[in-house]
């Protein structure tokens, strides 16, 4: 009885953060994403898995309109963030991207100091009124990025001088400095060693308390470790979306089974 009660409680707390409806993406003639419908929950880590070219990164980039930067890319359908269509002409993509942050595959710190890497976003979005407030944001972000202790004595040193794992955590700290609501991560650990990967995974789990995190990963073990929900993409289709434990022990679709057990690439 106790278990049932707690399950119901967690179900109640789940709030849909992003809702995609009939999303189609075209690169020129090629139909990259076909009819994707998915609800991404708040305070949850959602993993997108699938073979290369299946559309998972393309779909991820739709969620903060990064595909706008590609001329031949056309997005149809609706993507609702808290019920509002992000492809509405009234929406400013720059403001949107402050709300929906992104971390990329390769750590890409700005060629500036560690401090300025973090302060850049809050400055252009006017989130701090004075130096003291900015200092506070920088410290808070670096702490949340689980890298404060390693860099607090050298905030003026260039961000590019850090190790790969530290650079990636710096980029995560930079992404959360603008207080986003959603954090998109496109293979955030593929350039990192196992220790740095474990640190970033631990960080993702902590970030879940405040954000909705969507992660694209080629490592199925990573998807299994960090996410609560998993979506499997194949040839532009969302084949299966469900609770991560269920996807990895008893998937419904034979294509999901074939992929996660290493039978199709």
């Amino acid at each position, binding site marked *: 009885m106790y278990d049932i009660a707690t399950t119901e409680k967690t179900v109640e707390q789940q709030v849909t953060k992003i809702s995609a409806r009939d999303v189609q993406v075209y690169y020129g003639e090629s139909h990259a994403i076909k009819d994707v419908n998915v609800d991404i929950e708040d305070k949850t880590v959602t993993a997108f898995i699938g073979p290369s070219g299946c559309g998972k990164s393309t779909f991820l980039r739709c969620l903060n309109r990064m595909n706008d930067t590609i001329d031949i890319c056309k997005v149809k359908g609706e993507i609702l963030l808290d019920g509002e269509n992000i492809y509405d002409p009234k929406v400013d993509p720059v403001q949107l991207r402050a709300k929906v942050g992104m971390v990329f595959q390769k750590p890409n710190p700005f060629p500036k100091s560690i401090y300025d890497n973090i302060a850049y976003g809050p400055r252009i979005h006017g989130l701090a009124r004075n130096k003291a407030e900015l200092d506070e944001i920088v410290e808070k972000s670096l702490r949340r990025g689980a890298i404060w202790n390693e860099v607090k004595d050298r905030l003026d040193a260039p961000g590019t001088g850090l190790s790969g794992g530290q650079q990636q955590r710096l980029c995560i700290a930079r992404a959360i400095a603008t207080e986003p609501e959603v954090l998109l991560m496109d293979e955030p650990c593929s350039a990192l060693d196992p220790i740095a990967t474990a640190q970033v995974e631990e960080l993702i789990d902590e970030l879940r308390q405040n954000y909705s995190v969507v992660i694209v990963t080629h490592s*199925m*073990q990573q998807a*299994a470790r960090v996410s609560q929900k998993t979506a499997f993409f194949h040839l532009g289709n969302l084949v299966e979306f469900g609770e991560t434990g269920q996807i*990895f*022990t*008893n*998937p419904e679709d034979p294509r*999901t*089974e*074939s992929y*996660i*057990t*290493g*039978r*199709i*690439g």
Partner: protein
Amino acid sequence: MTEQHIAKVFDRDLEGIQARIMKMGGLVEAAILGAAQSLASRDVELAEKVRAGDAAIDDLEVLINEETARLLALRSPTAGDLRLVLTVMKISGNLERIGDYAKNIAKRTGVLTQLPPVNGSTASLKRMAREVELMLKDALDAYIQRDAELAKDVIERDREVDQMYNALFREFLTFMMEDPRSITACMHLHFIAKNTERMGDHVTGIAEQVIYLVTGERPDETRVKADDTSVSVLEG
């Protein structure tokens, strides 16, 4: 799942542990029949062979445990592959227990041959063991063929084994009341009946693993226990 893995060595590992289960199953089937046969024909030599043979079954279980641990560590199986590895571990445990019961029957046969025979009972015990052995054979066939229906059938058939045990329980009780000199033999025979009934439960456990392997879901526990000897007072 007939498709092959991209990593062929993974397929070979999975086939390897299943082949060991089948080998273990073969040895256990032979042990059940050997134990029942030795009891029926008061064959001490055969009983001794069954006792000695249990070591090979135990060794196989150890080997299967090592191989599944290695497979889990190196291949991180998921979905159907994961269920296969989990069921292999459980089934090898069930088979090992059945082997122990067969060994115990063979031990008691050694004692029983030194006592006067009790009328007709060894024939019933042999029938019961034969039924359990057939159930095990079908459970293992269901495993290899991924046949959940056959596994369900095996689970159903355990009722019959339970009923045979009930009947024997009453029979031995009557014998002991009628002739207290038969108590020693009847006590041993009762343990043999109980051991065989427990074998049936382990075969049921194997069949349940087959259903989990095929469907990903545990069979629901609606099975009615036909063994009522533990909850009723019997008077001769």
